[in-house]
C-alpha cells in the first residue's frame, strides 16, 4: 500500500518537473515600506503571463523563473497598495519590493484585473487572519485576541466561555498544532480561556489550516495555527501599547542595523488582583498572568539572516498560603535563513519549548504539590525550491525530542515515584505546488513520520486494562517505533475568472495526547506520548470546496464540505483519577471517531461596511470500547450550528463601530434520566452518553474605536467595548440538586460566567 503511494508520488513529481525549462530568475524579499517587516503570502504575478506567479514564503521571499524578456510584476496584498514593477530579465535579478500601507479599509482599484487569490490557489480549509482587521473586532475586556478572532471562522469552535482551547472540524482540543515562530505552544490560553497567550501587538501573521496542511506541518490531527511574530521596525524606534481596565501591554521595537535588522520586545500583564486587593478581604489573593515576547534579527550579509524569538508566559493564581497554582509556557527559537541560490531558500531552526503546571496546597500544616511538564528540543531544516514558473518544491526534516512528566505529587512526606518519559518524534517531507494547467493547480506532498518510545522508564503493557507485561527501558534505549506515511493533496480547478472548485485529501498522525479528567479543559490536563499501549492517532480527511468572488472582488464566498475519520482515539474508564492513579495507562480505553460538516464563509471586503458571515453545520462522534456500550455517541464538542457575524463600519475616518454576533448550539452533555436512593442519599441515573444538549449560546458584542488626530509622531486611540450587550446568561455548567423545599423535585441549576462586561482601552504609539 505504501509502495503504491510512494511510486505514484514520484511519478507525479517527475512528470511535473519535466515541464517548461526556464532561463532566468527574479527573486527577492517583499517588505512593508514603513517598518521593514517582511510580508508573508504576498502575491507576485507576471502580468504578461497569466497564471504565472508565486506567493512569498514565511520570510517574505519569492522567486520566479522565466525565459529572457521584459516583464511587469504585479504585487498585491490585503491592506497594502498594489505595486506594478517592470523587470528586465536577461540575467538573474535580485529585486526586493516595498509595499505601502493603505490609508483606510477601502481598497483602491489600480490597473485592470484584480487578483482572485482564493480562487486561483489550491489551498483549502485555510484562513489567514489579517491583523489589521482583527484589531477592530470586539472581544471581552477590549483585548484584541487572535485566538478569539480565529474562532469566528467557520469550522473553528470555541470550547465555550471560561474553557481552554478550541476545536476544529470536530477534533479534540489537543488536536491543534499551535506554533509561535515555529515553536509549539502547549497551552494557548490564560485564566482558563478568557485570554489567549498571544499578544496581538507582537504578531504579524496568523493562519489556520483546518486539516489539510502542506507536508511541512504534522503532529496534530485537526489543524495548524501558525502564528508569526513581527520582526520589529528596522527603520525607526517605536513604542506602542495600551492601558485597559484589566490589563496593559507595551511594545518596544527598533533597528539594530538600520534597515537590515531589528528587535521587538512586547509585554502584557493583568493586574485585576491589584484592584481586588484594595479590599482587605482579598489581600491574600494573587491572580495575574503575564506574557513577554522577545525577538531580534541580525543580517549577516545579503543572503544570510539570523533570528531569535522567545516567549515567556505564566499564570499565577493563589489564595494566601493555602492554595497556589502556576502554569505557563516558555519557548525559544533560533533560526538561520539562507538564500542559497536565486531559486533555493533554506531555513534552519533550533527550538526549545517548555510547558509547566504546578499546584500546591496546604492542609493541616502539610504541603502537597502536583507538577506536570513537557519539554521539547527541536531541530528543523526546510528548503523552498522555486524550481520553475510552474513548480515550487518544499522539502526538509523535523526532529523533536520530548521529555514529558505526568502529574507527579511531591511535598511533606510524599514519596514520588513518577518519572519523566522520553520520546523522539521525527519527520521527513517533500511537497510540490504545481501549476498543472491554465486552470488547474495541484499541491501534493508526502510526510513520513517516525516516533520512538524511549527509556529511561518502566513501561507497563495492558490488555483489557489488566497488566500483562512490564518493560524496563534503559536510558536512551528505543523501546518501540511507530511509522506512518501521510499523503497530502489539494487541487483547485478554475471554472471561471472568479470561481473555482477544490478537492483535498490529507492524512495526519498525532504522537502526543492530552489527558483530561474534566468535561471542559483545565491546566491540570497532562500530555502523554506514545507508548506500548498508546499508538499514534490517525485522521483522514476528505474535503470539497467552492470559491467565488463577486462584484469586482468586493465579496468573497468560500464554502467547503468535509468528512474526517479518526483512529485510535483515547478516553478513560469511569472512576479514573488522572492526578493520583499510579499509571494512567491502566485506565485508558480506545476507539475511533468521525466528523463531517458543511462550512460557508461570505466576506465583504470593500466599502464602509466590511466583515463576514460564517456558518458551520456539523457533527462529530466517537465510538470507544467500554463506553456507552460500544455505541457511537456525540463527542462533547459536537455542536450542530455555529454562526458568526462580524461587522466593521467606518462611521468617519476617525470613528469605527464594530460588532460581533455569535450563535452556537450547546455542547453535547449527559443529563440524568432518573434517580434512586442509595444509603440515604439521592443518586442520579444516566442513559446514553452525550445524548443531551446544553442550552444554546448566543451573544452580541460591540466596540467603538476613536482614533485621535496624530500629533507629530504620537498616535493614540480609545476603544470602548461592551461584551454581551443584551446580557444573556450563556450556560457554563449545569448541576442537578434536590429542591430545598421539596426534595422529591430535582432542580437544574445553570451557571453562567459573564453578563455585561464593559471595557475601555487607551492605545498609543510613538
Amino acid at each position, binding site marked *: 500500500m505504501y509502495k503504491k503511494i510512494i511510486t505514484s508520488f514520484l511519478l507525479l513529481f517527475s512528470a511535473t518537473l519535466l515541464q517548461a525549462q526556464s532561463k532566468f530568475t527574479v527573486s527577492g524579499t517583499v517588505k512593508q515600506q514603513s517598518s521593514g517587516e517582511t510580508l508573508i503570502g504576498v502575491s507576485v504575478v507576471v502580468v504578461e503571463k497569466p497564471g504565472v506567479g508565486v506567493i512569498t514564503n514565511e520570510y517574505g521571499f519569492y522567486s520566479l523563473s522565466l525565459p529572457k524578456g521584459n516583464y511587469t510584476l504585479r504585487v498585491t496584498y490585503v491592506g497594502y497598495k498594489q505595486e506594478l514593477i517592470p523587470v528586465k530579465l536577461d540575467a538573474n535579478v535580485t529585486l526586493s519590493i516595498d509595499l505601502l500601507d493603505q490609508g483606510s479599509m477601502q481598497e483602491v482599484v489600480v490597473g485592470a484585473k484584480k487578483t482572485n487569490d482564493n480562487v486561483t490557489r489550491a489551498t483549502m480549509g485555510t484562513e489567514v487572519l489579517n491583523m489589521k482587521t482583527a484589531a477592530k473586532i470586539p472581544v471581552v475586556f477590549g483585548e484584541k485576541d487572535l485566538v478569539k478572532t480565529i474562532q469566528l471562522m467557520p469550522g473553528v469552535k470555541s470550547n465555550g466561555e471560561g474553557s481552554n482551547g478550541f476545536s476544529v472540524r470536530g477534533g479534540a482540543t489537543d488536536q491543534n498544532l499551535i506554533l509561535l515562530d515555529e515553536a509549539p505552544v502547549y497551552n494557548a490560553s490564560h485564566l482558563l480561556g478568557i485570554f489567549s497567550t498571544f499578544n496581538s501587538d507582537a504578531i504579524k501573521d496568523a493562519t489556520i489550516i483546518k486539516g489539510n496542511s502542506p507536508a511541512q506541518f504534522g503532529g496534530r490531527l485537526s489543524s495548524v495555527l501558525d502564528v508569526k511574530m513581527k520582526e520589529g521596525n528596522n527603520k525607526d524606534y517605536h513604542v506602542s501599547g495600551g492601558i485597559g481596565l484589566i490589563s496593559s501591554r507595551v511594545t518596544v521595537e527598533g533597528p539594530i542595523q538600520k534597515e537590515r535588522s531589528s528587535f521587538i520586545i512586547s509585554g502584557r500583564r493583568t493586574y485585576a488582583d491589584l484592584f481586588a486587593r484594595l479590599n482587605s478581604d482579598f489581600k491574600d489573593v494573587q491572580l495575574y498572568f503575564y506574557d513577554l515576547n522577545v525577538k531580534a534579527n541580525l543580517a549577516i550579509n545579503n543572503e544570510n539572516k539570523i533570528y531569535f524569538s522567545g516567549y515567556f508566559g505564566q499564570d499565577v493564581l493563589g489564595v494566601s498560603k493555602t492554595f497556589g497554582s502556576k502554569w505557563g509556557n516558555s519557548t525559544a527559537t533560533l533560526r538561520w535563513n539562507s538564500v542559497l541560490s536565486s531559486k533555493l531558500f533554506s531555513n534552519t531552526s533550533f527550538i526549545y519549548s517548555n510547558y509547566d503546571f504546578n499546584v500546591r496546597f496546604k*492542609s493541616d500544616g502539610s504541603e502537597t504539590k502536583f507538577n506536570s511538564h513537557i519539554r521539547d528540543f527541536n531541530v528543523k531544516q526546510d528548503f523552498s525550491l522555486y524550481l520553475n514558473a510552474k513548480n515550487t518544491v518544499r522539502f526538509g526534516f523535523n526532529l523533536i525530542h520530548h521529555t514529558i512528566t505526568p502529574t507527579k505529587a511531591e511535598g511533606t512526606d510524599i514519596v514520588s515515584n513518577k518519572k519523566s518519559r522520553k520520546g523522539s518524534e521525527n519527520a521527513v517531507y517533500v511537497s510540490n505546488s504545481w501549476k498543472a494547467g491554465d486552470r488547474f493547480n495541484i499541491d501534493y506532498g508526502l510526510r513520513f513520520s517516525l516516533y520512538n518510545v524511549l527509556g529511561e522508564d518502566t513501561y507497563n503493557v495492558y490488555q483489557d486494562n489488566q497488566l500483562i507485561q512490564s518493560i524496563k527501558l534503559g536510558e536512551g534505549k528505543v523501546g518501540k517505533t511507530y511509522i506512518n506515511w501521510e499523503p497530502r493533496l489539494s487541487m483547485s480547478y478554475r471554472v471561471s475568472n472568479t470561481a473555482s472548485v477544490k478537492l483535498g485529501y490529507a492524512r495526519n498522525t498525532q504522537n502526543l495526547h492530552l489527558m483530561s479528567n474534566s468535561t471542559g479543559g483545565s491546566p491540570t490536563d497532562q500530555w502523554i506520548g506514545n507508548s506500548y499501549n498508546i499508538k499514534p492517532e490517525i485522521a483522514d480527511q476528505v474535503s470539497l470546496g467552492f470559491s467565488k468572488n463577486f462584484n469586482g472582488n468586493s465579496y468573497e464566498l468560500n464554502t467547503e464540505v468535509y468528512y474526517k475519520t479518526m483512529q485510535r482515539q483515547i478516553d478513560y474508564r469511569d472512576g479514573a483519577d488522572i492526578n493520583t492513579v499510579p499509571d494512567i495507562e491502566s485506565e485508558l480505553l480506545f476507539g475511533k471517531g468521525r466528523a463531517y460538516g458543511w462550512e460557508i464563509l461570505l466576506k465583504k471586503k470593500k466599502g464602509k461596511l466590511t466583515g463576514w458571515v460564517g456558518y458551520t453545520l456539523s457533527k462529530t462522534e466517537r465510538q470507544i470500547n467500554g463506553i456507552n456500550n460500544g455505541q457511537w455517541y456525540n463527542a462533547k464538542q459536537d455542536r450542530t450550528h455555529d454562526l458568526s457575524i462580524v461587522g466593521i463600519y467606518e462611521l468617519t475616518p476617525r470613528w469605527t463601530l464594530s460588532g460581533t454576533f455569535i450563535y452556537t448550539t450547546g455542547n453535547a452533555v449527559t443529563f440524568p434520566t432518573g434517580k434512586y436512593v442509595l444509603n440515604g442519599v439521592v443518586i442520579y441515573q444516566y442513559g446514553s452518553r452525550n445524548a*443531551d444538549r446544553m442550552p444554546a449560546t448566543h451573544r452580541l458584542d460591540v466596540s467603538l474605536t476613536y482614533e485621535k488626530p496624530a500629533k507629530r509622531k504620537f498616535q493614540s486611540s480609545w476603544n470602548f467595548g461592551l461584551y454581551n450587550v443584551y446580557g444573556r446568561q450563556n450556560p457554563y455548567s449545569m448541576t442537578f440538586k434536590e429542591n430545598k423545599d421539596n426534595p422529591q423535585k430535582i432542580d437544574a441549576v445553570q451557571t453562567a460566567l459573564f453578563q455585561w462586561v464593559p471595557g475601555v482601552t487607551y492605545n498609543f504609539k510613538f
Partner: protein
Amino acid sequence: MKNSSNILFVAIALLLFTSCEKKVTLTYKGNQSRIIIEGNVINQPGPYFVKITKSVSLTATETYPTIDDAVVTISDNAGNNETLTPLGNGMYRTDLLNGVEGRTYTLAVKTEGNTYTAQSTMPQQVAFDSIKVEKLTITGEVEYNLIPVYKDPIAKGNNYRFVLSVNDKLINQHFIQNDEVKNGLVNTFRLEINDDDVELKPGDVVDIKMQCIDNSVALFYRALALMADSGPGGGTTPNNPPNNISNGALGVFSAHTVATKRVTIP
C-alpha cells in the same frame, strides 16, 4: 482537589463580579427503571440490611417502588450462609450473620426471574482518631476544613469513605481517600467539601462516619466524587458508576468497618 479547584473558579468569578446561577427547565430523555440493590455488612454486631428498590424518572414525584418478594442470601468465606428475612418496604434483614474483618461476603438476590450477585471483602479496621477542624480566612470569608485524623497502615491499598452529617442532616456528597499519594502516615488531607450546599458555622455539630472499604466500593464512590467536581472544566462525564453487582443492577454491596466521631465547630 475539588475545593482547591473551587477556589480557583470562585476567585475568577469574583474577580469578574458577574457570574450568576439560575434555575432552568430542561427536557430529559426517557428513563429505564433499573433495580437498585443496597447492601451493607459492618464490623459491629448485626443485624445487617439489604434494601431493594427501583429507580424512577428524574421528574417523578411518587415514592420509589420497592421489591419485597426477592430471595436474598448472604454467605461468607467462613462457611456461613443465610437467607435474609423480608421486612417489607424493600428491606431484608440478617439474623445470624457476623461481620468480621478480613472476610469476604457474597450477596445473591433473585427477583423478577433474574439473579444479581456481588462480593465485598471487609478490610482490617484502621482506627479513627479524631476530627481536626482547621479555620481559614479566604477572601474575607471564614471557612472550615474538616480533616479526619487516622494513621494509614504501611501496607498499600487502603481505601476510606467518609459520610458527613451536619446538625443531624446527612450531606449528599461523596468523600473518598486512599494511600496512593501518602502511604503509612497520619492523614492530613481534608474532606473535599463542595460548599454550594454546606456552609459550616460556629456551633454546627459535625458527625463523620469513617468506613474502611475494599477496592470495588472505593471505585464506586470515587467515580461519584469525580463526577461531582464543579471546579474549572467541570467534573468527569457523568455515568452510572462502576459497581460490584452483576447483571445490570445499580447500587453497591459494601462490607466495611465503621467508626464515628463528632465535633462541634468552635
